[in-house]
C-alpha cells in the first residue's frame, strides 16, 4: 500500500518534471508554484480590521537551504497577512538544536511555534500541546505519541546515501555503482589510488556523525529488528552483540581508511564545497544537500545512490517519525495566537507555498494533497528508493519513539564516543561496553 503511494507520488513528480522541462523557462527552481498563494486573511473585504497578533517561531538552522526556505515562507506569510507578526528567534550556533531549544526554554523564550524533533521529551514535559484537530486533515496519518498527534510533519523522512562526483568516479575508472558493501569498499580503494580523498565528513557538527553511524546500525541492527532499542532498554540485547560490533567495526574501518583527514575540523556546511572543489569525491548525506551542491557550482555533475549491505540488500531511512511544527503550551493559552499559528501552518502546507519549501530542500511531502515540484536526477533516485518495496525503510537510532525511544541524552554521547573510537584507534568491543554502561545509567537516571 505504502509502495503504491510512493510510486504514485514519484509518478506525479516525474510527470511534473517533464511538463516543466518542456516549458523550459530556464528557471533554476522550475517549480509549478513560483507564484505562491497570497494568503487568506487580508482585510480587503472592507470589514473590521483584523486584530494584530504576534508569535515567535524557532527551527533548526543547521542546513542553510532549510533555513532560507522557512525564512522565505515566514516573510511571504507576513507580507500576505500584515496583521500577523512572526518573530523568528532561530539562531545558528555551534550548539546542537536540542541544546539551543533547551537554553531558550531556560531563559523563558521557548518559541510559540517550534520545529520539534524530540517530541516525546517535550510532550512529557508539558511544553507542547497536541496539534489542533482541524489541522489533522492536512496530513496522511501522522505518527502518534501516546495516541496523540503533536506535530505537523514538515516532510517525510527520506533516504540518505552517497552523493558522488561523477568526474572523480570517471577519473578513478569507476563505471558501475556498487551492488554490495564490498564493492563499495573497492570503489573507495580506486578513489584513493586516483589521489583524491574518497569521503568528506562534517564531523565538527555532531549531528553529521549520525549519517554514517545510522547507515551501519540500520544495516546490521534496525533492518532486522526495529524494536532493538526497546530490547536494549530492557537489557535483552547489548551494544556488545556481534551485529552492533560488526556495524561499529565497519564504521571505524571506513573512517580510518577513506575519510578526509580533517573530518573533525570540517563543519557540515563545508562539505558541499569539498565536493564541488574536488577536495573529496563523495559525501554521505541527505536530499537537502542537492540544492546546496547545485548552488555551490551549477556545473558540478553529481549522482546519488544508497549503499547496499554485504548481501546486496538496500536499507534506508524512510519511516515516518514524530517531528515537525508544534505549538507551545504557553502559546496555546492565547486563542488569538493559536489562530494565527494555525493560519501560518495552513499557509505553510498550501501546495503553492509547500512546493517551494520542498523544492528548496528536496523533501518529500507529508500532506494529503498532492504537491509537485521539478525533481532533480538525484531526487528521482530517492523517490525510486522510497517506492521500491524491496528497499527496507527504517529510522536513525534517536528517531524511534514510544518503547523504542532511547534516552534523549544518549545520541550525542554515543556519537562522541564513536569519534573517540576512531581517533584513538580504540577496541570496538571495549567501547561498546562503555556504551552499554552509559545507556543503562541514562535509563536509570531518567527513571528517577
Amino acid at each position, binding site marked *: 500500500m505504502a509502495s503504491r503511494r510512493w510510486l504514485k507520488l514519484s509518478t506525479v513528480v516525474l510527470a511534473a518534471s517533464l511538463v516543466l522541462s518542456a516549458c523550459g523557462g530556464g528557471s533554476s527552481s522550475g517549480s509549478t508554484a513560483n507564484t505562491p498563494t497570497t494568503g487568506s486573511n487580508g482585510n480587503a473585504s472592507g470589514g473590521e480590521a483584523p486584530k494584530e497578533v504576534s508569535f515567535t517561531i524557532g527551527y533548526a538552522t543547521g542546513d542553510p537551504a532549510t533555513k532560507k526556505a522557512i525564512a522565505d515562507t515566514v516573510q511571504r506569510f507576513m507580507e500576505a497577512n500584515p496583521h500577523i507578526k512572526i518573530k523568528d528567534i532561530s539562531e545558528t550556533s555551534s550548539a546542537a538544536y536540542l541544546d539551543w531549544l533547551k537554553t531558550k526554554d531556560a531563559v523563558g523564550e521557548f518559541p510559540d511555534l517550534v520545529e520539534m524533533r524530540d517530541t516525546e*521529551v517535550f510532550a512529557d514535559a508539558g511544553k507542547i500541546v497536541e496539534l489542533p484537530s482541524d489541522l489533522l486533515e492536512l496530513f496522511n496519518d501522522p505518527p502518534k505519541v501516546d495516541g496523540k498527534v503533536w506535530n505537523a510533519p514538515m516532510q517525510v523522512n527520506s533516504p540518505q546515501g552517497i552523493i558522488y562526483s561523477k568526474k572523480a568516479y570517471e577519473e578513478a575508472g569507476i563505471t558501475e555503482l556498487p551492488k554490495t558493501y564490498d564493492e563499495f569498499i573497492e570503489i573507495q580503494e580506486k578513489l584513493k589510488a586516483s589521489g583524491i580523498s574518497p569521503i568528506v565528513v562534517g564531523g565538527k557538527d555532531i549531528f553529521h556523525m549520525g549519517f554514517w553511524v545510522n547507515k551501519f546500525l540500520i544495516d546490521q541492527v534496525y533492518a532486522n529488528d526495529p524494536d532493538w532499542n526497546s530490547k536494549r532498554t530492557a537489557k535483552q540485547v547489548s551494544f556488545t552483540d556481534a551485529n552492533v560490533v560488526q556495524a561499529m567495526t565497519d564504521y571505524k574501518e571506513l573512517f580510518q581508511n577513506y575519510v578526509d583527514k580533517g*573530518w573533525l575540523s570540517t563543519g557540515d556546511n563545508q562539505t558541499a564545497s569539498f565536493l564541488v572543489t574536488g577536495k573529496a569525491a563523495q559525501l554521505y548525506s541527505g536530499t537537502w544537500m542537492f540544492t546546496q551542491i547545485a548552488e555551490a557550482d551549477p556545473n558540478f555533475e553529481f549522482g546519488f545512490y544508497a549503499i547496499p549491505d554485504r548481501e546486496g540488500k538496500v536499507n534506508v531511512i524512510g519511516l515516518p517519525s514524530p517531528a515537525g511544527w508544534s505549538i507551545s503550551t504557553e502559546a496555546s493559552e492565547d486563542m488569538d495566537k493559536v489562530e494565527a499559528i494555525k493560519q501560518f501552518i495552513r499557509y505553510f502546507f498550501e501546495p503553492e507555498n509547500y512546493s517551494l519549501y520542498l523544492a528548496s530542500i528536496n523533501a518529500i511531502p507529508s500532506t494529503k494533497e498532492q504537491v509537485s515540484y521539478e525533481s532533480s536526477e538525484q531526487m528521482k533516485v530517492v523517490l525510486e528508493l522510497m517506492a521500491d518495496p524491496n528497499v527496507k525503510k527504517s529510522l536513525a537510532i534517536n528517531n524511534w519513539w514510544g518503547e523504542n525511544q532511547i534516552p534523549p*541524552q544518549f545520541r550525542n554521547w554515543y556519537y562522541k564516543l564513536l569519534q573517540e573510537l576512531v581517533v584513538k584507534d580504540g577496541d570496538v568491543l571495549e567501547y561498546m561496553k562503555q556504551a552499554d554502561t552509559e545507556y543503562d545509567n541514562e535509563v536509570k537516571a531518567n527513571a528517577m
Partner: protein
Amino acid sequence: MAVSAANSDNAYTAAKKKKKWQSYALFFILPSFILYTLFVIVPTIGSVYYSFTSWDGISADVRFIGLANFVEIWNSPRVHNALQNTLILTISLVVLENLFAILLAMLVDKVRWLSNLFRSIFYFPTLLSGIVMGFVWAMMLNYNFGVVNQLLAKIGLGAFTVDWLGDPRFAMLAILLSTVWKGAGYYMIIYLAGLQGIPQELNEAASIDGANGWQQFRHITFPLLAGSVTVCMVLSMISALKIFDQIAVMTDGGPGFETETLTYLIYKVGFGELRQGFGTALAMVLFFIILIITVFQVKILQKREVEM
C-alpha cells in the same frame, strides 16, 4: 568643665551625624542588595536543592533523589575524565600564563622606546571576547583552510600539518596556547605594577656587588613580586577552573571527550542532555573544588610572601 561639656556635645553630634550617614548608606545599598539577593543568592540556594533532584530542566516534575547525583558523579568515568582534563588545563594554564606574564612585564618594564605600544599590544588579546577569540583560533587551526597548516605547507613542512583541533594529541595544546595568548596580557599589567614598585637601588646595589641578571631576578625581583604572584596565581587558577568559551567554540569538548572540562560538562549535561539536576550537582562539586584549592593556594602563597 565647660570645655569638657562642649567636647561631649561635639562627640554626640558627630556620632549622630555618623549614625544618620549609616542609615542613608543602607538606603543606597538596598537596591543592589535586593538585586544581588534575587539574582545570585536565591538561585545559588535554589541550586543546592536542585542538585538533589532528577529535574530535567524543562518539566515541572522535580523529584528529590537524595544523594544519587553525587554518587553518580563519584562513579562516572566521564566526570573523572572531565576532572582530569580540568586539572591538567588548570595547572598548565597557571604556570604558563604567569610565566609569560612575568616575562612580558619585564620586557615592557625594560624597553625604552614604544613601551606603551608594547603594553597595548600584549594587553589587547585580553579585551577580546572568549567566543570571538575561539572562532578566530579555530579558523587559524582548521586542518583544511587554516593559516597555520597553509603556512607549514608553504615553507615545505607539509608533512607536519595536522588536525590541530581534531587530533587528541594536539587539541588540548591548542586550547592551552590560545588561552595563554589571551590571558597573559592581563596578568602582565599586575606584574608590571609590582615591578615598578621595586626600588631601583636594590638592583643597582646587587649589580655593583657583581650579581648577574638571573641572580638579581632570583634574589631581588621575584621575592619582591610575591604579592603580585599571589594575586595572579589565584586569579588565573579560578579562571582556568572555569574555562568554557574556548572549549565550546574550538573543540566542543572533543575530539570525543578529550577536551571536555567540568564547566563544559555541566553545560552539556544540564542543557544538552536534559539533566539539570545532575548538572547542578556537578556545579556544586566544582564550587567546592574551587573553594578548597583557592583557600590552600592563598594560604601557601601568603606564607611564602611572609618568608620572602
